[in-house]
């Protein structure tokens, strides 16, 4: 399987990670529908239980922490549906993951064009 560690700051979502994150990603995939997003917000515990999240995944969901969610096997395409519940776009989660302010993160992106 792919060595996930040789590109800094990057996890290759391969079969090994996909198996580890299956329950978490399945829950996030369910957020494609508004009624599932509402059910999650109504009773987060029950919703996570229904999908069989492990403790690491449950804690990462509780903390709304994207790096932790990825570490728990999350795939960013499904996680985007989870963060979407809280109105966070990819720049918001980029800032969160890099520990930057949103403004600093946007500046960094702009600077890539120079």
């Amino acid at each position: 399987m792919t060595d996930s560690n040789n590109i800094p700051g990057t996890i290759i979502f391969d079969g090994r990670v996909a198996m580890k994150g299956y329950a978490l990603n399945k829950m996030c995939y369910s957020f494609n529908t508004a009624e599932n997003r509402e059910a999650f917000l109504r009773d987060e515990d029950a919703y996570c239980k229904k999908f069989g999240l492990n403790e690491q995944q449950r804690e990462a969901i509780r903390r709304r922490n994207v790096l932790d969610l990825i570490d728990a096997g999350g795939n960013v395409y499904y996680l985007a549906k989870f963060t979407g519940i809280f109105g966070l776009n990819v720049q918001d989660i980029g800032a969160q993951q890099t520990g930057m302010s949103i403004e600093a993160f946007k500046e960094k992106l702009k600077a890539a064009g120079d």
Partner: protein
Amino acid sequence: MARIVGGICTSHIPAIGAAIARGAQDDDYWRPFFKGYPPVRDWLAETKPDIAIMIYNDHGLNFFLDKLPTFAIGAAAEYQNADEGWGLPTLPPYAGDPEFSWHLIESLVNDEFDLTTCQEMLVDHAFTVPIALLWPDRSTMTAKTVPISVNTVQHPLPTPKRCYDLGVAVGRAVASHPEDLKVVVIATGGLSHQLEGKRAGFINKAFDEMCMRDLIEDPLALTRFSIHELVEHAGSQGVELIMWLAMRGALGKDVAKLHSHYHIPVSNTGAGLLLLENAA
């Protein structure tokens, strides 16, 4: 005989769709991006393709990890978008052409590309955003669509070489269709970007510029990258270059560039646009 009249590559990120939805095309942030598109719209209005083969990657709308095809093709009379988790509105359906789809499927499978065939297929932003960019007024879009989805979610992804070869087979399939149809091949995604991990926000302008050049002049050079190398040079979502390579494969050996545009950043992405046609 059907023929490919041109190939288009464009970025497809959701932020573009959101900018269109709130009418922000002329804002200072967005103007440098949107100003690249009118020449391609004019070309489409003039060329009036009958079929648009849309080569894109599903981001977890139609496919999940339970059953994830490497290549999938639609064979439906119409395709519907849907909410992707952040409340996207349902748009009018996009017309398909099942007869043309089945012709492609027959030809591709005979050519040893064993795609998953879909008589129902939800299409996500990677399909809808490029159409909104290319045909802002949907009523002028006469082309019927054939979606081809490529797995970029779960590794192993198909190699750049395999995607290029798929495009070559698409080109053969189009050329063997008996009707006199004009076909445009539209590849969506790219260029460099990375959404996740501590390297989120990675953009590689020099690599993007090389890709836009080599895609025209020496696409085989790009097919020699491994997926892992593409992740390294272009970011984990920069692998979407493989859709562009499929488009390029569908065109002939020599192509002419009719238009290109590149802008950094739109959201987290180096955004590229190319319009190519087969050289005379």
